[in-house]
């Protein structure tokens, strides 16, 4: 078996088919683990592959022996045996013991994986179509929250620009955690099922809308670890990566301080009255990171799956209906509720849509109106 991680000669020959083989870095096994549990998983996989490899070789040695020696063209005469109780019992019972031997260490690892008690830091990861939201719930950094979007430019995806080194695996706001601390990740989702998957940390946990699930990791070394959403979640399932920065305790503390300051600066005064220009400017950002995926940066949407906002009856109609749409979504469609945005953000994005893409209602929606609309 070739999953053992060593390139077989035969395989190498097959690889020669691929162009650019000389400089390509072929990887035949799992990513290098960065946690103790990851090491165990790595070991278990190698062990199982080896066990299977040995059985495979043993079984097919017999097959190929027969194929080469007992062939009719060599004058082989068929024997006529067709039953043997002893071998049947043997090849039923022996594998049972092999499997028991394997099940034992796996059980230990599984128990370790699922022990999420006593975390140092608890972070909630929420899957949205198609980005991750992070809330630091407990431990150092409590209160920090942000949304993490793919940062690879569209041009790279559509082949109009050279692809970067971390093409598709890079985000604007990475998750940041300290090294050597037990991090508990609570997963949930706002719309459909996503899965939070970082290979090197040996975690993959489905994020099920309406439920909290959890997993944990304790990174042994500093570094940047990348993963992707691992549950089909609609059109941009391939474009919602996860980037985890593991920092030393000091650097982490510094990062936390910085975030807190940023958040304080960003915190909007909900009672302030905003003018149209301010709202539009703010709304454009909110739109780009929340709405453009479906309704497109042009506002033209992608009908019929995603309606255009340009010229939409809802957007040009009474504002209450639009506030309602954004706050509560449209159940049963991809249009999710955007309750988690702040009053200011919602007011801004609604104002923006009503005054962009050729829409020109001239209305400025105030955060207080959103606040009133929330029950």
């Amino acid at each position, binding site marked *: 078996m070739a999953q053992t991680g060593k390139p077989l000669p035969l395989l190498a020959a097959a690889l020669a088919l691929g162009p650019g083989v000389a400089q390509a870095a072929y990887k035949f096994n799992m990513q290098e683990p960065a946690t103790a549990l990851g090491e165990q998983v790595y070991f278990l996989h190698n062990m199982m592959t080896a066990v299977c490899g040995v059985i495979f070789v043993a079984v097919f040695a017999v097959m190929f022996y027969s194929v080469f020696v007992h062939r009719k063209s060599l004058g082989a005469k068929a024997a006529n045996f067709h039953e043997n109780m002893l071998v049947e019992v043997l090849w039923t019972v022996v594998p049972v013991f092999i499997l028991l031997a394997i099940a034992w260490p796996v059980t230990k690892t599984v128990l370790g994986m699922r022990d999420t008690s006593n975390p140092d830091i608890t972070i909630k990861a929420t899957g949205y179509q198609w980005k991750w939201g992070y809330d630091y719930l407990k431990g150092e950094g409590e209160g920090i929250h942000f949304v993490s979007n793919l940062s690879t430019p569209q041009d790279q995806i559509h082949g109009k620009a050279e692809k970067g080194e971390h093409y598709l695996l890079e985000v604007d706001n990475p998750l940041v955690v300290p090294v050597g601390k037990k991090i508990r990740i*609570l997963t949930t989702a706002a719309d459909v099922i996503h899965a939070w998957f970082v290979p090197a940390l040996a975690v993959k946990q489905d994020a099920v809308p309406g*439920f909290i699930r959890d997993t944990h990791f304790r990174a042994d070394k500093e570094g940047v670890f990348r993963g992707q959403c691992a549950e089909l979640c609609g059109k941009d399932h391939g474009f919602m990566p996860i980037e985890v920065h593991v920092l030393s305790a000091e650097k982490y503390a510094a990062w936390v301080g910085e975030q807190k300051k940023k958040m304080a600066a960003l915190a909007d005064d909900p009672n302030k009255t905003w003018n149209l220009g301010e709202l539009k400017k703010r709304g454009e950002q909110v739109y780009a990171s929340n709405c453009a995926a479906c309704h497109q940066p042009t506002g033209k949407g992608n009908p019929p799956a995603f309606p255009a906002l340009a010229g939409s009856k809802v957007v040009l109609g009474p504002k209450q209906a639009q506030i309602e749409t954004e706050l509560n979504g449209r159940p049963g469609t991809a249009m999710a509720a955007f309750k988690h945005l702040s009053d200011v953000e919602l007011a801004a994005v609604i104002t923006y849509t009503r005054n962009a893409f050729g829409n020109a209602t001239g209305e400025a929606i105030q955060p207080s109106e959103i606040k009133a609309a929330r029950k």
Partner: protein
Amino acid sequence: MSQQQHQAPYYYVPAPSTSMIWGSGALLCLAMGTIFWINGRGAGPWLVLAGFGLLLVMLRRWFGQVIGESESGVYSKRVDVSFRWSMSWFIFSEVMFFAAFFGALFYARVLSVPDLATLENQSLLWPGSTTAWPNAGPGFKEFFSPMHAMGIPAINTLLLLTSGVTLTWAHWGLLENNRGQLKMGLFATIALGALFLCLQAYEYIEAYHQLNLKLTTGIYGSTFFMLTGFHGFHVTLGAIMLTVIFVRVLKGHFRADHHFGFEGVAWYWHFVDVVWLLLFIFVYWL
């Protein structure tokens, strides 16, 4: 008649027939019609109607032919055994169909509803969610009352159980060549089934208008109407099948030693009965 039995071929293989392709067309029309209908496209209801019509044509032609063949005596004992096997397996498949919905009910009661009320879910997502059953989920804010077991459902249980008895009584009549008892028993069974359906309909109306218990009433409403609805649908089918059998009896079909049609329908009816008992216990009572 029994003479014909002796002349029956070893195993009757029917000649080519055009009935089945009508059935395929019917299902295609029904499927497309339903899809268009529930998506609010104009042609939907008409297509459903057309599909339903085609289905009736197909059933009439196909089963008419089978009944004719049966009465003309081309079905040997071996064919009869085939019918028995196939009906048993068909009922088994129905059991599994209901199992999916019962599975949903048990899952909701034992797993998902309590899960939604765990500490973490309560504090982060669903403040105020509870584990109590009946439960329409943490997002359901209206008031509703569940259906109580001891009113109509209990009466319905009695009705169906009695109908099982009358059907067996009818079968005895058939076996003893007592056609009067056969007819009476069958008629009583159909009447009890119809009464059951009327009460069920009444119960639904009450649920919608008095109890605020609807299909949209969270998981309780979903499982309640799905299970009882599909059961009601099966009772309807069973009653139609019994009616066909009744008409055939009136025409003088079936003999004490050759009446698989009757027995197959009886098995089906008993199956529907047993499902009801489970419904009564798990949906209404516990």
